[in-house]
């Protein structure tokens, strides 16, 4: 205890030494506040993290996990379902995430207009989808998109269109997934971007308009550079969320049809807990970790650079 207090934060410790003699009081060691969290982290994070890394190099041989080196990773490279799940994720990253961020940007731009009336009501209307329970909203879309008698197909029917087999056709299943995720998360991202827009001083817009800059020029020279970190935040969190997608595609399609909406996390769930192949499931999990790390790093480089140049 006494040695610990020597290392305590100087600013807090300074008057303490003088007062120690004056009044006895309850003292606790300096790691006590962080202790419970540290213990939980070691037990429920550090240990299982190591264990899963180890397991990714093992395979079940007659009921015994045996060290097999990179065998599981090689198996992954030749597993068409794994590649398909990555392809589906790539498709979401290339189509859904940019679509949603652009929609959110436009929405935030509109909601930031001073002439717009009932601004907070609009914001609430758009934000509401992101307050739904994840499984619940996926359920709602599942029923809305039901092939026979689903609301969406009924509306299409009135417009003279044929019913679409939304969740059982590989292409439409992906469209449904993209639409659902976009519905749930666009307003959320727009509110974050809106907060970023509101942090830009009004004088800069005024200066731009005095200089005769139109809306596009104002966006390119004033808004975009300052909004960059917020866009980065939105795109990184959306990318990570996409790579961890599980609830929506499990509820909507269970990864089908023909794995058209399979994602790596749903796949590792099925490998690990339907087939009880823990080694392979761990290897897939580490592949996801690696991909998230690389993509986050790239996005930081891509969006971060210009900001650094500016400073």
């Amino acid at each position, binding site marked *: 205890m006494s040695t610990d207090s020597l290392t305590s934060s100087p600013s807090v410790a300074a008057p303490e030494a003088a007062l120690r003699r004056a009044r006895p009081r309850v003292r606790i060691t300096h790691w006590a506040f*962080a202790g419970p969290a540290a213990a939980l982290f070691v037990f429920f994070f550090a240990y299982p993290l190591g264990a899963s890394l180890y397991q990714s190099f093992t395979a079940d041989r007659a009921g015994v996990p045996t060290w097999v080196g990179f065998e599981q990773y090689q198996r992954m490279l030749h597993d068409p379902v794994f590649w398909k799940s990555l392809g589906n994720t790539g498709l979401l990253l290339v189509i859904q995430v940019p679509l949603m961020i652009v929609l959110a940007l436009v929405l935030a731009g509109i909601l930031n207009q001073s002439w717009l009336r009932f601004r907070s009501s609009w914001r609430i209307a758009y934000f509401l989808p992101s307050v739904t329970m994840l*499984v619940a*909203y996926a359920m709602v879309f599942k029923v809305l998109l039901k092939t026979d008698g689903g609301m969406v197909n009924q509306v299409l029917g009135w417009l003279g269109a044929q019913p679409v087999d939304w969740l059982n056709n590989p292409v439409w299943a992906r469209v449904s997934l993209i639409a659902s995720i976009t519905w749930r998360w666009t307003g959320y991202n727009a509110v974050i971007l809106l907060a970023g827009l509101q942090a830009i001083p009004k004088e800069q817009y005024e200066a731009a308009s005095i200089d005769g800059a139109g809306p596009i020029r104002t966006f390119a020279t004033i808004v975009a550079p300052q909004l960059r970190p917020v866009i980065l935040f939105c795109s990184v969190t959306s990318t990570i969320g996409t790579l961890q997608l599980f609830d929506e595609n499990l509820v909507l399609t269970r990864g089908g049809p023909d794995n058209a909406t399979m994602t790596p996390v749903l796949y590792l769930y099925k490998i690990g807990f339907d087939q009880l192949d823990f080694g392979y499931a761990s290897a897939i999990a580490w592949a996801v970790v690696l991909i998230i790390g690389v993509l986050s790093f790239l996005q930081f480089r891509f969006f971060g650079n210009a900001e650094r140049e500016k400073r």
Partner: protein
Amino acid sequence: MNAAASPRRLGRALVVLVLAAGAVVSVVPFYWMIVAATHSNSELFHSPPPFLPGGNLLRNLVALEDSIGFSRVMLNSLGIAVVYTLGSGLISAMCGYGLAKYRFRGRGLLLGLVLATMMVPFQVLLVPLFQMMASLGWVDSYQAVILPFLANSFGIFLMRQTFLAFPNELIESARIDGAGDLRTFYRIVLPSVRPQLGALAIFTFMSQWNAFLWPLLMLNSEDKYTAPVALYTLVGGTHVDYAGLILGSFLATLPLMVIFFLFQKQFVSGLLGGAVKG
């Protein structure tokens, strides 16, 4: 007259029109949930479908209670989320305070661990955590759902940032008044960061209320299910009670909407969680 015809006003009217169309898309599913939840299954998929709320709410509710014990399941969700929110909030505040205001051996390591937890997707822990819970005999228990994620790295990081800005003078003056470390923490420090704690509590409550994958793995008996797990089991059978499904989904979402409307400010600041500085 002239003003109305001016291109600027026309442009703005168009923008509002587009905005309204998008808002309809956003909100209509909520209205439809109310409509669907108050009709019978056959009415729901009848052509033309119902557009106004019907009179089948009570019957759907009874059916839902019979099929998945809905009230029990909601109470399970609520209990787990409340315990998790309180527990992880306290642990986050303590750890954040310890990291911000104390120097101790391994502090850098712990901070590194917190940041690593934020970056590593939790799915990588699924298999070992599952095995741990199995060997502890905790499968199908509430502690198995709550404990592994009780130390919440996002919360710890948020609280650390909060406490870094907390004036040392206040802590010192509490000590001069003779308060011990714990007393200082509970009486002086915690009450003054109530807004941040509130935002964190909303965030953690929501994340636990939404949690699906881990409870799905851990909970096996129907009377222990959380709401999302129980709702998910509804789509498994051959004869799906769609109206009940939508009613359950709506009721399971309701607490989140209530929290949102009550605490909009904290809600948004919790969600921003460092995205926008200042």
